[in-house]
């Protein structure tokens, strides 16, 4: 039997909240954080960190059904 697809929620944080919003998407099984980054390209001058369920995750982190993904821009402060 094929693995079912996984459903994950993606949100932009900080000033990416408006740009990305909050949405639920379906990804193929075995998807990783790096696959999310490809789907939501941001400005090349910007570094982002991806949080999975509020914990920082590396590009190779495997995603699971129901995960909450936050795309957080790293930007100097005031």
């Amino acid at each position, binding site marked *: 039997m094929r693995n079912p697809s996984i459903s994950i929620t993606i949100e932009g944080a*900080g*000033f990416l909240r408006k740009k990305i919003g909050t949405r639920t998407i379906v990804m193929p099984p075995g998807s990783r954080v790096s696959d999310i980054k490809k789907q939501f390209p941001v400005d090349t001058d910007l570094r982002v960190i991806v949080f999975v369920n509020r914990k920082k995750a590396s590009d190779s982190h495997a995603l699971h059904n129901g995960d909450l993904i936050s795309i957080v821009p790293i930007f*100097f*402060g*005031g």
Partner: protein
Amino acid sequence: MHANTGKILRINLDDNSISVFSPDEELYKKYIGGSGLAAKLFYDMADFNCPALDPQAMLIFMNGPLAGVKFSGTSRMSAAGRSPLTNIFAESSCGGHFPPQLRYAGFDGIIITGKAAKPSLIHITRGKAEIVDAGWLWGTPISTANEKIKTKFGTQSKSLVIGPAGEHLVSFACILSNAHHAFGRCGFGAIMGSKNLKAIVIDHQNFNQSYYDSAKLHTLTNEITPRIKEHIFTQVLNDFGSAGNLEGHMYTGDVPIKNWSENFNEEMAENLTGSTISERYLTRKASCAHCVVACKRIIRIEDSPFAISEGPGPEYETVAALGCMLNSSDLAAVCKAGRVCNDLGMDSISAGATIAWAMEAFEKGHLTLHETDGIALEWGDLCTVIEKVLPAIAARKGNLGMLLSHGSKKAAEHIGNNSISYTAQSKGLEAPMHDPRGGGHGHALAYAVSPRGACHVSTAMHFMETGACNYPEIGFEFDLEALTDEKKPETMVLAASIGSIENSACFCQYADRPLSFNEMLELVNLSSGYGHTLDSFIEAGLRIFHLKRLINHRYGTVRADDALTERMLEPAREGDGAGILINFESMLNKFYSLMNFDDQKGIAKEETLRKLDLL
């Protein structure tokens, strides 16, 4: 001379004498201008036995070579002196419109000593200055004083003004330029107050400057400006102000909450972030002279217990210091607290951090109702902060006002109970609103070794660690992992030089982010004709950093003062940095070795000082 005028106003308020002083031209190149030149003049001319608020204490305002150039982020200047808050070298930087006007009036800077017999102001017009009575301004909040000055000297006049806090010698009183842009840190407002100096006013001046190579400078600025405009950093700063990514910072654990005891609060993140400020209260954007970034906010709040008229809105530091640190998510209250702080003339970082410490002390029973004059200091109660605490501090009134007016370190030393352990400061300067435990461990090193005390802008570490700049020309082209000490001491060496260059050339650290290091160098050379090479520019930055450490050593600082408090170094309790210890001593040791610092004295060893021409 090009760009610089070579003329510095020297004013002695004891006898109203005014003269013009011309430093050796070579000093301009070696110390670049701004904070570097001010530090050098202070080192050579100040009396190191003079207490911070003594009439003979020296107060310096200094432009960099770029002030007046019609280009983004160059309209800034530096102040130097001895801080009443830290008792060591004080420096602060301010944007707005005053710096180019001072340059167009014919001066690079102003050196002030003495104390006026009565409240006074310095009035500058083209090529000359006068000291005039300011009795009609004394006692007024900054916004009122600003309006009165405009009525008397013209709507286009530019001013530096202190508020009641400066008049009452609050240790962290600030100076505001045109009631908006601040010399925030280190207590410069109190230094002016101690001299009976309410304001410095410049009449409007027309552009007049000559540059080393005007044509090339014009071409370069025209070439870079579209890039600055389009850069993602500019777009965020323009749309949402400097608090534009407060929410993003919150995720990484960079924002200190509740006196550095928490690191994440979703409601706070959403309510206080810059986009919420823009959506709810922004009426228009504002900028320093010639800047396309326009990160400044003009806001108005209606239909709220915290209603405020149209005027300057809070920066990131103010939002975090008077909101997150005091555990409030009430944006209107935070904006109002920021406005009140400005109007009274106090640094919002030190004010917020000191009140946050007092709230924790009250919670722990280390401060009682007796010491607070019956005021209950409860987390999140900004009503009390706005109506009672801030005015009491500014007036140094009652037990509480007097205690907190000295800042968190001295207040903690006064009440004891090891309450110093939960201050967040280094050398007595309250830390800015970036928590190294989440924002990046290099910040901890930067706070400890920055000459004025805990500071994220006197060096470039904050920008380098957050990946906001990349300078392959000088060997900085790597991504730093925030929550480790890896490459942080090495980065700190470069950061010390780059930060000194930025603050001496007087680049704005927001607007200059899209610039390459070569472009910064070119801008300085084309305007001033200094003829710096990459190497000599970096060396000048290091010279300035080492010089400020020498000044501090004259005031008695040693390696043991390069320290952070227990609260700042205990592992964060939540977020990404939870449980991770900062490898602080190891970073500090490595930095000392890379800088060739003496292990006890905390200044460079003789051979390095000689090499930099500091001996």
